């Protein structure tokens, strides 16, 4: 990570801050969804149980969408090519995106978290800072996932189609709708390779069982490894030169 990584991250943050409509949407959309979740599940005990998993899903979804589309815009506007003609490394570009968008993914999850805890009166166990650290980890994975898949999309339409391909299977297999242990064995195997499974397991352990980060070392380790591997893969697949 070099100063160029921070320069690119700073530019992304400045870009989004100057786009007031996007900032308004970044705040409003999580509030609308959190309200919908709160109102649509009237059973308080069920809401308390399902909330951590929904939080993990939303972090993944927002992080993936925001980063994927933005990275693609960079390509379609020609600014990515301009960056690739400059002395910055590919890792600087992807790393800058990770840092820049992680901030916004984090802001969105904090909005959902505090809104549901303080307005919708969700109860949770565990320490707040540990829950937030774990949310950052899920967010980092989501941002890396978005950057990685945007490398393969040539336009926004293609990128949108990655959502049902990348996000929806994870929602079905992460244990949000049905316990993973009761699924067919081959699906249980598939679930082991999906980051959201570890995100949901980890955040449930923290918020429902009151465990700490040390207790969920496996989930923390897998999510961190997942983010690092995707970051490296995204920078490797981002071609500076293309052969004819």
């Amino acid at each position, binding site marked *: 990570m070099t100063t160029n990584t921070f320069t690119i991250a700073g530019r992304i943050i400045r870009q989004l801050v100057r786009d007031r409509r996007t900032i308004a949407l970044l705040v409003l959309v999580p509030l609308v969804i959190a309200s919908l979740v709160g109102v649509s599940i009237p059973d308080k005990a069920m809401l308390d149980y399902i909330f951590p998993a929904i939080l993990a899903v939303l972090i993944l979804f927002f992080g993936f969408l925001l980063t994927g589309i933005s990275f693609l815009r960079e390509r379609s*506007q020609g600014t990515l090519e301009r960056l690739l003609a*400059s002395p910055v490394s590919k890792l600087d570009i992807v790393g800058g995106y990770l840092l820049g968008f992680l901030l916004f993914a984090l802001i969105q999850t904090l909005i959902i978290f505090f809104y549901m805890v303080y307005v919708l009166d969700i109860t949770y166990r565990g320490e707040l800072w540990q829950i937030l650290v774990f949310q950052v980890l899920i967010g980092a994975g989501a941002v890396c996932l978005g950057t990685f898949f945007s490398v393969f999309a040539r336009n926004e339409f293609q990128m949108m189609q990655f959502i049902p391909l990348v996000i929806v299977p994870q929602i079905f297999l992460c244990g949000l709708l049905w316990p993973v242990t009761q699924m067919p064995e081959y699906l249980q195997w598939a679930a082991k390779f999906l980051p959201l499974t570890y995100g949901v397991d980890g955040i449930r352990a923290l918020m429902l069982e009151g465990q700490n980060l040390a207790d969920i070392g496996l989930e923390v380790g897998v999510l961190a490894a997942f983010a690092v591997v995707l970051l490296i893969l995204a920078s490797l697949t981002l071609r500076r030169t*293309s052969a004819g």
Partner: protein
Amino acid sequence: MLHDATILEVKLFSIKEHLLTSITTGAIILHQMKTLTGDAAPAAGAAIAIRDLSFNYGRLKVIDGLSLEVPPGTSFGLLGPNGSGKTTLIRLMAGLLKPAGGSIRCLGQAPSPAHARSVGYMPQLPALYQELSVEQNIEFFARIYGMKDNSQRARRVEEVIRLVDLWSRRRTSVLKLSGGMKQRVSLGCAIVHQPPLLFLDEPTVGLDPELRAHFWQHFENLTSAGTTLIISSHTMDDAAHCQQLVFLRQGKVIAQGAPAELQAATGSSGASLEDAFLYFIRKGEAAGNDN
């Protein structure tokens, strides 16, 4: 300033016209022959040296055995119709495309991220961050091209914004600027780190005549200061401003020389560059038929 530029433009044109009548046709033909056959020895210290370059998009040959050399400190025009390979050639020189064959040397080195700091690149589309202001765009490119000293960078950014005549709009989002203004910001981003080699892909496209004269005045200042400019264009008006030109057609160099030399090669005293371009196309076709 723009008025002065127009006078300068007229004077330069008169000088070129004068040169046109004074250069002997024999010397020109010899020059063309060397260029077309590619047997000229590489000039020492050439800003760009390209040998037998080829590039394909799938089955389509976009650059086909192209060789050329660009002396340092010149404005070098790549002239040709749409699809002649101008942008592809610039992208190859900027290291954004990998050649299928042949070699490219920019300032003595193969295009790579390591040499990118010595190069400025202005793409055909403005390629700017729309939400950011003029100042923020130019400042960002100054940073990523290694201008680390804050006060030095701030001075240079201000200098460039004034140069492209956008000081009063420096805090305006690029999104709110006109097409010509965006082109000027894009130029500012390409020159902010003062590279010795500049690739400008159709820099004057969509500009009004006044702004075009303003751009050319600045390009002439840059070459006077020793910067090598590679400028692609499909307009003969732009071509007349370049010190050296290559005519490109179907990924090949069909002629190379100073605008006056190329005009004189037609053998007609009143020939325009457009006439010269058509002359070389016909000459190439005739040579092809003979074979």
